[in-house]
């Protein structure tokens, strides 16, 4: 297990708050494990106590905990992962389903950055498409903007049909 490494995230974890929850969970797990070791030094780490999200990260990154140090490394890595997360804010015209967000995060992590997390907003004026905001930039990928870009061509077509 290598320290100072950002973990790969499963597609079911796509919000920054989820990572924060996992971080709090791993701290609690570590504390419980420490207490258990104080009571019984031979005690082993029980992965069944972990949440399904944390388990999915363990599986995705082939993490096997055998002692407290490994658990501390996982906590540190997870904390580092939390710090390195790249957040993108998406706005849609209607509430996004979980399946949709999972598909979207898969694409984003595969093609853009593996540490991307999403925050999702609602903006009915978008209609079709989306608007996204990164740290410094704003991308309007709505149909209205695309039509606006093609406005000259559309006007030409209208004028041609009039003449």
């Amino acid at each position: 297990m290598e320290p100072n490494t950002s973990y790969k995230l499963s597609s079911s974890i796509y919000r920054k708050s989820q990572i924060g929850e996992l971080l709090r969970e791993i701290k609690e797990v570590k504390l419980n494990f420490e207490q258990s070791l104080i009571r019984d030094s031979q005690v082993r780490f029980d992965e069944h106590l972990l949440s399904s999200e944390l388990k999915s990260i363990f599986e995705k990154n082939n993490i096997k905990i055998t002692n407290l140090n490994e658990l501390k490394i996982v906590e540190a890595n997870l904390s580092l992962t939390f710090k390195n997360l790249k957040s993108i804010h998406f706005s849609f015209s209607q509430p996004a389903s979980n399946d949709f967000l999972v598909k979207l995060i898969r694409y984003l992590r595969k093609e853009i950055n593996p540490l991307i997390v999403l925050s999702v907003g609602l903006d009915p004026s978008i209609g079709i498409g989306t608007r996204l905001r990164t740290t410094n930039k704003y991308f309007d990928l709505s149909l209205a903007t695309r039509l606006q870009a093609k406005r000259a061509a559309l006007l030409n077509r209208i004028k041609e049909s009039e003449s």
Partner: protein
Amino acid sequence: MTIWWLAVIAFGVICLGTGFIYLALKLNKIEKNRSDSGNKLLNALDQSPEKDVEHIFNNEFREELRNRGRLHFDKVIGDNAMFLQQDLRLTTSELNQFMKDEISKTLKSEFSKYEQSISDAKQLAVESIQKTLAAIEEQRKTFTNQINDEVNKDKERMIARFEERMTDILNHYLLEAVGDQVDLESQLEYIINDLEANKQGIIEDLKNGA
């Protein structure tokens, strides 16, 4: 010889002149005597008629003369009355004719003036109406031009507004038409294509972002 003849002629003329002067003097004397005897005769004649007149023109004769004169006067008066009546009738008829003519002439003159004034008034009214019509026509043209300008401006404004907001209108129309049939799942491919098109920009910003 000539001198002798001249002397004879001169002597003859002198003799004739002397004869004439003698005759004139004689005639003058005779005339004087005759006038004196005439005066005496005339005085006698003047006195005798007066006596005869008083004798002839007595009261009966005077009455008769007066009656005759009265009759004659009546006759003259009657004749003159008839003539006067005729003259009066003639004059009246002439006067009537004259009055008719004068009144007709005056009326004709007044009527012609009246007709002239009516004609002038009519002409003025026609000119006024024509001017009013021309003004109305001009105003109509002005209003028409203004309305056309306003309509054209409004049309251009509407077209400009439509062109300006065309994309919003189309987008709104599409949303109204198919908005409830296009869910995010079906938009995913479209969104991913757009993300693919902007991938580099997103990567850059995520890499360089604070």
